[in-house]
C-alpha cells in the first residue's frame, strides 16, 4: 500500500535495477537502498583498468547521486545490515538503527571465495572485489614488483594482464577450484594455461599452495609443491560466494546463497533475493542455480521488484554469454564485459 517501505540490501546491479523498477512501477512506495560500501554503484569489471591507471575513479560510477535524489530513492551508503528479524519486519544496522520494512529485496551479491584449506592465509592474501580492494592494490603495486596470482577465475585473467601491462612480474597458479561454480574440464583449463603463459605470465606448474608467510609489509614467502619463493603480494582469485553470512540465523533458508523460488521469493512474504547472493529454484531441473554476472544480476533485480509489487515473473537462467579469454571460449558470464 502507499507509503510502504521497501528496503533493498545491497548496492550492485541487482539492487539498483530493483530500485529503479520499483520507482518506475510503484511510485507510492518508499524505497531505500542500504549499501555497505561508502561509494555509489560502480562497475566492478573496470577495477583492473583502474589499477592499471587507464581510468579514474569517476569513470567507474554508473550514475550520479543526484539521480537517486531526483528519483526519490533513498540511498544509504556506508551502512551495514547486521541482522534481519522477519517476524517483526525489522532490519538492524551495524550502528544500532532499526529499519522497518514492508517489502525486502536481498541483493548483497557475492564476496571473494577463499577455499577452506587456504582460509588460514586469508590475512596475507589480497582480493579484488571492491573499490577499496582496488585502492589497496594501487598502493601495494607502487612498492612491489612481483605478484603471485592464485586461483584463476576470470577476474584473475584480466587482472594478471593488468599487472603485466604495469611491468610487474606475474606468477600464476591455476587452482582447480578457480572457476567455481563452474567446473572447467581439463582440456579448457590446459588451453587457458597455455594462453596465459603466452601472455607474459609465469605459470606455476603445481596446483597446491602449501604455505604463505608474511616476512614484512611488502614481502611474502610462498611455499608450493614445486618450490618456494618470495613475492611482494599474493592475489586470491577463487571466484565469489554469496555474501549472506549475516542472515544465517535469521530464519531464511540458506545453503550457499539465499534460497528462493522461481519467482525469487524467499519463504517469507514480500521478501525476495536477487543477483549473485541468490540460489534460484529451477522447477524443471528440480535444483537450485546461482546466477553469475552483471547482466543476470540486473535481470534478477528487475524480476524481484516486479514480483514484489504483485507480478509473477519467472526467473530464467540467462542465456549463457560466451566469453573469450585469449581466444578460448568459456561458457560463463562472470565479470561480464559490457
Amino acid at each position, binding site marked *: 500500500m502507499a507509503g510502504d517501505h521497501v528496503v533493498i540490501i545491497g548496492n550492485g546491479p541487482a539492487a539498483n535495477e530493483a530500485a529503479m523498477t520499483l520507482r518506475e512501477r510503484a511510485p507510492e512506495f518508499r524505497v531505500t537502498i542500504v549499501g555497505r560500501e*561508502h561509494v555509489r554503484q560502480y562497475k566492478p569489471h573496470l577495477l583492473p583498468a583502474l589499477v592499471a591507471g587507464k581510468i579514474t575513479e569517476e569513470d567507474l560510477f554508473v550514475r550520479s*547521486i543526484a539521480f537517486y535524489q531526483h528519483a526519490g530513492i533513498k540511498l544509504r*551508503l*556506508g551502512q551495514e545490515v547486521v541482522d534481519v528479524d522477519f517476524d517483526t519486519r525489522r532490519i538492524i*544496522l551495524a*550502528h*544500532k*538503527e*532499526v529499519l522497518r520494512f514492508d517489502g525486502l529485496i536481498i541483493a548483497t551479491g557475492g564476496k571473494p571465495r577463499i577455499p577452506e584449506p587456504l582460509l588460514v592465509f586469508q590475512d596475507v592474501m589480497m582480493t579484488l572485489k571492491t573499490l577499496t580492494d582496488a585502492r589497496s592494490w594501487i598502493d601495494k603495486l607502487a612498492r612491489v614488483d612481483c605478484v603471485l596470482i592464485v586461483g584463476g577465475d576470470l577476474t584473475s585473467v584480466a587482472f594478471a594482464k593488468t599487472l603485466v601491462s604495469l611491468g610487474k612480474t606475474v606468477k600464476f597458479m591455476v587452482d582447480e577450484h578457480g572457476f567455481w561454480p563452474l567446473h572447467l574440464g581439463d582440456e579448457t583449463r590446459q588451453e587457458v594455461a597455455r594462453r596465459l603463459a603466452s601472455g607474459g605470465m609465469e605459470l606455476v606448474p603445481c596446483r597446491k599452495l602449501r604455505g604463505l608467510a608474511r616476512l614484512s609489509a611488502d614481502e611474502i614467502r610462498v611455499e608450493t609443491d614445486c618450490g618456494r619463493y618470495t613475492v611482494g603480494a599474493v592475489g586470491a582469485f577463487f571466484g565469489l560466494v554469496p555474501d549472506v553470512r549475516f542472515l544465517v540465523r535469521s530464519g531464511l533458508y540458506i545453503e550457499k546463497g539465499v534460497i528462493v523460488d522461481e519467482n525469487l521469493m524467499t519463504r517469507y512474504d514480500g521478501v525476495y533475493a536477487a543477483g549473485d547472493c541468490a540460489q534460484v529454484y529451477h522447477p524443471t531441473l528440480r535444483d537450485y542455480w546461482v546466477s553469475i554476472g552483471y547482466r543476470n544480476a540486473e535481470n534478477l533485480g528487475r524480476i524481484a521488484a516486479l514480483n514484489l509489487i504483485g507480478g509473477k515473473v519467472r526467473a530464467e537462467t540467462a542465456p549463457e554469454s560466451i566469453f573469450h579469454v585469449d581466444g578460448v571460449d568459456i561458457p560463463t558470464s562472470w565479470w561480464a564485459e559490457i
Partner: protein
Amino acid sequence: MGRVDVTMEVCGMAGDGTIAAGGLLNEAMSAGGFSVLGFDSYPAEIRGFGRCVTRSRVGTERILALVDKTNVLISLDDVQSHSRVPYLAWDAAVFFDSNPPVYVEEEMSLAARVEPGATLFAFPMADLAAAAAGTMRGRNLTALGGFAAAFSVPRDLFIEVIAKKFKAKGSRVLDANIKSFDAGYAYGLEHFSDRLRDTLKPPPGIKTGPEKVMLSGNLAIGRGALDAGLKLYFGYPITPATPIMEYLAARLPEKGGRVVQMEDEISSVGAVLGGFYAGARSMTATSGPGFALMTELITHGVMAEIPAVILNAQRGGPSTGLPTKTEQSDLHAAVFGGPGDSPRIVIAPTDVEECYRHTVMSFQLAEKYQTPVIVLTDFYLDNRVENLPMPQATESEIADANEYPDESVRGAYKRYLMTDSGISPRSIPGTEGFTFSATGLEHVEKGTPNYTEDNHMSMTEKRHRKIAGALEDLPAPVEYSRGGPLDVGVIGWGSTFGAILEAVNIANERGLNVGALKITSIFPFHGGVIRAFMNRCSEVLIPELNYEGQLANLIDHLHHKDVVRLSRATGVPISPSLILKEIETLALAGA
C-alpha cells in the same frame, strides 16, 4: 601549497563536552599552523538543557568569515545533530557513535537523514572511551581521536593541546583524557583506512611567523583595556558583554585597578565619567538595552567634555530583542542617540585583532578629544575566536593623551577655552591652581552656565570642530582592490566586513572587477575618502546586519546615485555567498 578550507562542527547536548571538544579542535588546528575562525552557539535560555554547536572554519589562507556549508560533523548527540544536517555540504564527513545505549528508530537516526554523498564514520565512541579510561566522560575526546585519524591530523597536535588544557587538573585526569583520545585515534587508523582524507594534514611550511593564540573578541577587548592601562571598570551584566567584565574582574586588581559591578547601566556610565574626570582610565561595556539607558549621560559627557570609553556589544533588537543573536543595529543610536547636537566618536572593529586595537585606541581618543568614545562590536565578533599572534600595544599607543593647561594660566584657568582645534586643555582634580567645574549646562569658557545666543552657537560649533578634528587620529577606510575603476564597490563595517572581503576576493578570482572598502571610523567618518572610492565604482553595495541600512543612511549622500543596500535582520552573520550573489548580479547587470 594546496588550498585547505574545511568547516567543522561538533554538536551535542549540554553536558556532552561539546564546547570543550570544539575548543580543543580550534587549538589543535591553530597549533598545526592553519588559520582558524570559530563560533559556538549555546543553549539560549536555561543551563543544562539544549543544544550546543561549535563551528570552526580552518584553512591555509586567512579565514575571514563563516560559510553556509559544513564539511565535517562530529555528533555527540545524534538527535541534536538532526538540526545540523541541512547545513552539511553534499560530501560532508559525519562522525557518530555506532553503539548507542538503545536501538534507534529510523526517524530518530542521524545516518538516515544525511544525503548519500556524505561519508559516514560510525564508531563506538562511548565504549572506546570507557574501555580506555574507565569512564565514558572522555568520549568527546574519543570522537576527536577518530576524526584526527580520518583526516590525517597528526596525533601530536591534539596531545599537545590536551596536555595544555588539562595540565592543571592533575595527571590522572590528563592521562584519562589522552587515553580516551588515543582510543578513538587508534580505532580510526585501523577502521577508517578505506576512506581517509588527508585534508587536514598541515602542509609543510604552513607554520610561519610568531606563535598564535586563540582569542575571542571579548577577550581581545579585555586584554586591550588592560594593556592600555585601564584603571576602573564599571559595569552591569548583559549579554554579550558580561565576559569582558568577568575577564577584567580577575585581572584588573593585580594591575592596581578595580572592577565594580554597579546597580545599573546608568550608574555604570556615570561612574566611568566620574572616574575619567578624576584622571583614571575608565570603561564600561554593555549591549543595546543598556546602551539606551546610558544615552543621557553620554550626551552629558559631550557637553561637559568629559572622556569615557563605552563599548556597545550589539545584539538583536530593538528592546530586549534577541539576546543571543548578532546584529549591527545600534549605529544610529551610537552616532545620534541622545538629545541635542551631541557629536561623539564612534569606532567599530571588524575582527578580533581590531577588537584589541580599537579598545587600546579608544582611551587615547577619549582623553585627547575629551569625549565619550563608543566602540561598537556585535555578538558574533565578541564570541567568535580567531587565532592570531598575541596582540601587543606600543608605548606610544597607550601614553597619556590628555592636553594639560599651560603653567601660564594658573589661577586664571578656563576649562572650556575656545581654541582652533576645539580642544580645551583639561586639568585633573587634585591639581592646584587649575580648579574648575564641569557642567552639562551650556557654559562660557570659564565653565559657568550661560544661555546667550552667540555663546551657544560658538560653543556648539567648538564641540563639533573638536570631534571633526579627530579624523586625523582615526583609522582611515582601507581599500581592498586592484585600484582604478571598479564594477562594484562593497562597503562594510563591523563583523560583516570579513564576509564582504571573502566575497570580493572570490568575485575577483572569477574574473570580475570588484573592490571592498572597510570602514572602522563610524563617526566622524572620512567622507572624502569614501566619496572618492564611491566615484570609482559603477555600483556601490552596502551589506549590513540591520534592516534600515544604518551605515548606508550615514554615508549614502556621498554617492551621486543610490547605493544598493543588502540589509539583513536575521540574527546570524551574513554569509559570503549571499554577498557574492549580489555582487555578481550587480556586475552582470552593469555589464
